[in-house]
């Protein structure tokens, strides 16, 4: 069945901002889908609010709407564009939900838009728990026994039927609050009562406990002709009870016999057919009882998912691309396997390596959050590693996490054998409850003498995995016994490398420099070889150069047997599959590794732009990255993809083999910058801004000298290596001061302090974080306006790409504050001065490529330089979208020798429309965390609002960030004492606009004094009904609450937490409140409209 000819234009919905549970995997799938559909000649209309994506690049779709993903806005887009079909399955749950809402309100039918990939009935069957359960019953697939109770009596009836232990899941509580496992009747009675009370609908799901069972996922693809294939099986190392996004997962399944696997496959086929996904991909989760033949279907996602992205990267089979083509009518056998280009896509990939994914967490930014891993996802990113064995891939993945670990222990962060060695009590506790440190504690447990059987009994982790980890420890012991590089035979080197030990770990064990380990190992003839990811275990020749490194024993050949190439000594070759140079210049781009708060999709965007620009300019591109969610690790993005951890050793291995003519380090965030010096020392040609210039910008003293030389202003500052030094600096420059560790991204451990006591407290933490590096202390410019500037320079000229004015005042991390481009309230002369300073800095630093500068402007109009980053910034994609200028592409071409003149970058672009970037936070995943903003970055993602006026753009950005501003209703105001006076005009404006104001006693009195009508409400401790009751009843539409204190236990923090739980928009700064008032005024005047990027920039 060829492609459908009755469709011409197809709308596609993205997943919006990066949030926990919805990461950049949907940029990867969405971009693939866009490309696939356009390849087939369809016109693609894309809606996504996230500017940091490749999919919202104006070149990815025909019509790109960076607009809020709400039914109202989608409807506006559909009205304007009148597409024939809507593909809702590549934008995560967000896209599915909004598509379902459009279906429910009849918009799709009215506008004649067909849902393709999965229709509303299918989505409902898969997502509605009761319907899903019923269908499973009909097709003979086992599900956990369960029931829903509304009363205690019902709860007892249900548990009598399903038995103990059982899981209680109260409906609609945040982060699963009030849920848990009951092991006995007494516990059950108590927990059921609490669960019913906490659930706003007095509803609790009581489910048979399958915690500790083995957990699997199958990635299933089906076409219109009912051909079904399983692309990949994934086994979770962490058994049932930990969300798969938070589990260490392994592909393919390791511990299933063929008989068990085929039964699971049969069930998956029955499920996808019964649910009715006609053409597309689905993810189905199963659990098996390790001690019997029982198998249970957990859930199904009728769309591409995080796991399908992982499966695509793990196998080389591009699920989203294929799913998009199936959605327009193709069958699997009509499509080619991209990797072989000779065999069809109607097959099941087989792999000859092991893939391990390890999640990355950011709990340190949410000290009040519960760090136990549960069925609610908490990780913010992930890294994937490929090795020939599980041991190798696990160790590679652990060093790919970039958390200062270089494998499973035996590195400098290893606590074993130090005074901080974990006690048996700590080990027992860390094993018993799933947590993000558990992998390290498996090793500690083994070192402490616990047997695999004991560890299995506590953790329920399959003994097979534990045995493999025990093998890693055996090799570690062998290395310790060897003691030095001199004692290492070639066989011993090979064995250590085959078990995944990094040079860094070996160097730590031998107590020598890493470079010595590398030198001696290479001298022993043990070097990394690269193998292909080819979907077929080498059965067919692969065309696509997608590689991973491993270590293999040499093969010996009789002279007559030697085939195409000989690289090793005398007839001994460890086979390597990389290809010889084509004669084109090779440029290697270092990616950003796993997503984390402070380093996310924005940097992947830049890396991908670099690859595209270089490819267009005739270079051969090489991408090195370890993040499976990304577009950069799509084998289509670059000419050679190396799926490798971003460490000196792994990158040098690639450089050894590929001999790049240039390496780009300024696009992947801090990750590659941290490697730059080490790579340069080994002779790797870094292109773009010199490593020394990066150092000049990052080294405080050198930077201060630069600022002085340019006659610019910097807040007074100093640095200290200990607490006493810090006190001295603070007293010299005067409080308040901003303290932070050097060389840390995302404002980790950064704090504004107002007195000696707080300074001492925070310096201690900061010193800890920076591990021996100094603590930086800056004068904090209270009340100043922050400005971010991105520019491109070629060494002789600098062009400002965009000037962004922050909405929130100085002191809030630039990654967390909203900003507007162009500045909405800065005088033209001031903006010009900021641009002048930016250009001066870029020229002085001899920047070749991108540079970002942060300024603070005081009320008196003085401009201070806060920091300079001679690299791509978090705002690069936002600026590119706001101004229609592909900054990262231009910067890339500068790095390979083009001048700005040659690139046609003569002047600066100041758009006539306004663009607002707003940050999105994970607070709803961490109940109990206070949501006030500060100098430590905590947002996971961002959205963009574009409109002709600043208030309209701001209103859109709030809608897109799920913090919609109400056009009417009740506003609760409660501000800190210092803010009372400034809150008055805001309250007055709201009252004049017709909003009803409510406030607690203090604020109410202050407002009444100014003649503003306000109703008083009770604080939480003042009795009931109080403010939280009003929120629960939906009687509050907006909250303006500026903090007077910080901490989860304060009354105001409870208000903010309740706002998150009840999804009431809560504004915590007066600056944002001011912007919100203007936005409210605008949305009351006239409805917001939509416009495609291509229209704004004259390409549509």
């Amino acid at each position, binding site marked *: 069945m060829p492609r459908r000819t009755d469709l011409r234009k197809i709308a596609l919905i993205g997943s919006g901002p990066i949030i926990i549970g919805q990461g950049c995997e949907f940029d990867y799938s969405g971009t693939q889908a866009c490309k696939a559909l356009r390849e087939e000649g369809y016109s693609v209309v894309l809606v996504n609010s996230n500017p940091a994506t490749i999919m919202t690049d104006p070149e990815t779709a025909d019509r790109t709407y960076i607009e809020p993903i709400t039914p109202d806005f989608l409807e506006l887009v559909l009205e304007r564009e009148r597409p024939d079909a809507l593909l809702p399955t590549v934008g995560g749950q967000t896209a599915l939900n909004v598509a379902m809402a459009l279906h429910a309100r009849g918009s799709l039918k009215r506008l004649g838009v067909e849902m393709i990939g999965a229709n509303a009935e299918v989505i409902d069957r898969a997502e509605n728990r009761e319907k899903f359960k019923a269908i499973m019953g009909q097709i*003979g697939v086992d599900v956990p026994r369960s029931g829903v109770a509304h009363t205690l009596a019902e709860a007892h009836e249900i548990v009598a039927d399903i038995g103990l232990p059982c899981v209680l899941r109260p409906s609609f509580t945040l982060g699963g609050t009030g849920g848990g496992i009951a092991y006995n009747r007494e516990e059950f009675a108590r927990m059921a009562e609490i669960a019913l009370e906490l659930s706003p609908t007095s509803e609790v799901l009581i489910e048979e406990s399958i915690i500790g069972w083995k957990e699997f996922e199958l990635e299933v693809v089906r076409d219109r*002709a*009912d*051909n079904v294939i399983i692309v990949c099986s994934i086994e979770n190392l962490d058994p049932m009870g930990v969300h798969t996004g938070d589990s260490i997962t392994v592909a*393919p399944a*390791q*511990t*299933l*016999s*063929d*008989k068990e696997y*085929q*039964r699971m*496959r*049969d069930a998956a086929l029955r499920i996808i057919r019964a649910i009715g996904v006609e053409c597309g991909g689905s993810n189905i989760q199963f659990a098996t009882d390790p*001690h*019997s*033949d029982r198998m249970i279907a957990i859930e199904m996602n009728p769309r591409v998912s995080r796991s399908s992205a992982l499966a695509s990267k793990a196998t080389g089979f591009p699920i989203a691309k294929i799913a998009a083509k199936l959605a327009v009518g193709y*069958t*699997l*056998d009509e499509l080619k396997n991209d990797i072989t280009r000779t*065999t*069809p896509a*109607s*097959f*099941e*990939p*087989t*792999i*000859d*390596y*092991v893939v391990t994914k390890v999640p990355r967490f950011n709990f340190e930014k949410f000290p009040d959050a519960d760090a136990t891993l549960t069925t609610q996802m908490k990780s913010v990113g992930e890294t994937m590693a490929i090795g*020939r*064995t599980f041991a190798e891939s696990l160790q590679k993945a652990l060093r790919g996490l970039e958390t200062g670990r270089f494998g499973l222990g035996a590195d400098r962060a290893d606590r074993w054998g130090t005074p901080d060695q974990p006690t048996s009590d700590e080990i027992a506790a860390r094993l018993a409850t799933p947590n993000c440190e558990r992998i390290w504690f498996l090793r500690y447990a083994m070192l402490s003498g616990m047997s695999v059987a004991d560890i299995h009994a506590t953790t329920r982790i*399959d*003994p*097979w995995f534990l*045995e493999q980890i025990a093998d890693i420890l055996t090799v570690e012991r062998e290395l310790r016994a060897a003691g030095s590089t001199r004692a290492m*035979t*070639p*066989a011993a080197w090979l064995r250590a490398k085959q078990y995944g030990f990094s040079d860094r770990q070996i160097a730590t064990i031998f107590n020598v420099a890493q470079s010595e380990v590398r030198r001696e190992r290479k001298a022993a003839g043990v070097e990394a070889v690269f193998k292909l990811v080819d979907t*077929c*275990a*080498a*059965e*067919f*020749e692969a065309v696509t150069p997608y590689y991973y490194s491993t270590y*293999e*024993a040499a*093969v*010996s*050949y*009789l002279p*007559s*047997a030697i*085939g195409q190439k000989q690289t090793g*000594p*005398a007839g*001994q070759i460890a*086979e390597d599959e990389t290809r010889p140079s084509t004669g084109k210049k090779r440029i290697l781009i270092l990616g950003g590794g796993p997503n984390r708060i402070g380093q996310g999709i924005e940097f992947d965007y830049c890396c991908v732009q670099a690859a595209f620009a270089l490819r267009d300019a005739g270079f051969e591109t090489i991408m090195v990255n370890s993040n499976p969610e990304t577009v950069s690790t799509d084998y289509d993005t670059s000419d050679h993809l190396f799926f490798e951890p971003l460490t000196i050793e792994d990158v040098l291995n690639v450089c050894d083999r590929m001999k790049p003519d240039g390496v780009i380090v300024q696009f992947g965030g801090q990750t590659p910058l941290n490697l730059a010096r080490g790579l340069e020392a080994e002779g790797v040609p870094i292109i773009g801004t010199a490593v020394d210039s990066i150092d000049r910008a990052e080294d405080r003293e050198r930077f201060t000298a630069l600022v002085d030389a340019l006659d610019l202003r910097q807040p007074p500052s100093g640095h200290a290596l200990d607490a006493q030094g810090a006190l001295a600096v603070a007293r010299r420059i005067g409080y308040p001061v901003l303290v932070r560790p050097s060389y840390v991204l995302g404002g980790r451990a950064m704090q504004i302090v107002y007195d000696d006591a707080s300074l001492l407290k925070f310096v201690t933490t900061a010193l800890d974080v920076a591990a021996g590096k100094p603590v930086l202390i800056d004068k904090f410019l209270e009340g100043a306006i922050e400005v971010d500037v991105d520019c491109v320079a070629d060494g002789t000229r600098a062009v400002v790409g965009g000037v962004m004015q922050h909405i929130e005042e100085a002191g809030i991390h630039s990654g967390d504050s909203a900003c507007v481009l162009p500045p909405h309230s800065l005088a033209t002369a001031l903006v010009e001065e900021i641009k002048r300073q930016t250009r001066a800095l870029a020229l002085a630093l001899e920047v070749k490529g991108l540079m970002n500068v942060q300024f603070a402007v005081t009320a008196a109009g003085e401009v201070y330089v806060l920091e300079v980053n001679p690299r791509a910034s978090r705002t690069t994609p936002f600026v590119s979208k706001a101004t229609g200028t592909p900054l990262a592409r231009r910067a890339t071409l500068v790095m390979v020798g083009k001048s700005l003149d040659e690139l046609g970058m003569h002047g600066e672009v100041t758009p006539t429309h306004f663009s607002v970037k707003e940050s999105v936070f994970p607070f709803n995943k961490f109940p109990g965390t206070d949501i006030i903003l500060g100098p430590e970055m905590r947002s996971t993602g961002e959205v963009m609002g574009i409109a002709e006026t600043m208030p309209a753009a701001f209103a859109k950005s709030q809608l897109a960030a799920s913090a919609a501003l109400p056009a009417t209703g009740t506003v609760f105001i409660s501000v800190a004492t210092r803010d009372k006076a400034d809150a008055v005009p805001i309250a007055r404006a709201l009252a004049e606009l017709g909003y009803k104001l409510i406030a607690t006693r203090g604020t109410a009195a202050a407002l009444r004094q100014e003649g503003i009508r306000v109703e008083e409400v009770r604080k939480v401790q003042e009795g009931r009904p109080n403010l939280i009751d009003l929120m629960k009843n939906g009687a509050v539409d907006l909250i303006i609450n500026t903090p007077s204190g910080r901490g989860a236990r304060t009354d105001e923090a409870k208000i903010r937490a309740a706002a998150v739980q009840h999804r009431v928009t809560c504004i915590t700064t007066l600056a944002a409140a001011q912007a919100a008032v203007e936005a409210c005024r605008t949305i009351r005047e006239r409805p917001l409209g939509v416009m495609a990027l291509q229209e704004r920039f004259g390409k549509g």
Partner: protein
Amino acid sequence: MVEEKITEVIDIAKLALEDGTVYTGTAFGARTTTAGEAVFNTSMAGYQEVLTDPSYTGQIVCMTYPHIGNYGINDADRESGHPRVEGFVVRSLSRTPSNYRSTQSINDYLVATGVPGIEGIDTRSLVRRLRVRGAMRAVISTEILDDSELIRRARAARDMSGLDLVREVVPSQSSQWREGLDAPLTAHIFKPVLPRKRVVALDYGLKWNILRCLTAVGCDVTVVPGTATAADVLSLEPDGVFLSNGPGDPEPLDYAVETIRELIDRKPVFGICLGLQLLGLAFGAKTFKLKFGHRGVNQPVLNKRTGRVEITSQNHGFAVDADTLPGNVELTHVNLNDGTLEGLRHRTKPVFGVQYHPESSAGPHDSTYLFEEFRQVMG
């Protein structure tokens, strides 16, 4: 230099190919020397089924998936009474299995049954070599460590083409098969069709799961040696005749072709793998040797009658040449990877066969309908 390295490892095994390639790894299983044709299988699980599949007689099998032995060996997943491979080649052997059905490790199993194994070699480079040069004669040894001697022995090993390996594996006498697919992991696959029919299975090296499938779908199966004559078969008054899989080249098996020629006019006949090739020869078609064969559980086969793609389990080094099929035989299935013949059917008689393994084991259950069809054509 090679020798120096070797002395450090206590338990060496070597694998030498006729082209002069020598792989040095660690021994497992039996300590001995064997020769055979080196082939690879791309199935990620199902190693026990592979080891015990009689079609691997005379072959040294390399598994492309690196971790083998993870879930051990159990009593149920056998395709015959003992391992049939000449040697077993893996990247990484799991010596401590983990599975509720496991009764022993693969190492213990191969020690007990006399099969040598080699682990720790670059199996992917071996596979690429076999892909480029084709299946090669090879020697696996834990005793002889001299490369030249090993290569000499590999070159002296018997060639698969023209060799009758079936005589080495046929049972000495007939037997009645009883076992179905009632185990919890497989009970869902078939619903029996009544009334039950009598089937005679000609055993050329039969996989037991074929018998389990036939039994489960509603057949009472008598297994007779593949050397039986048509008269022997007909004397059992079967409702249908099944032609089994088996090892090696179909061409030298004149006796079998003779028997089949007589049976196809008299009874419904269903053949699998070697059984299909023999059916092809009986119809007058030709067979040929594939470069490196199809061995795995992910081979896409187009069913030309339905237009649907089946993901199939395969293990064959020879194939029927589709261009030589007579006009009265229909090409029903085709391999989508290389276009080779995967199924045929007589246009008027209830006689058909497939090159792949609808009984799977190891592999997917996409093609179990063939057993149902066979049961149906018997009335």
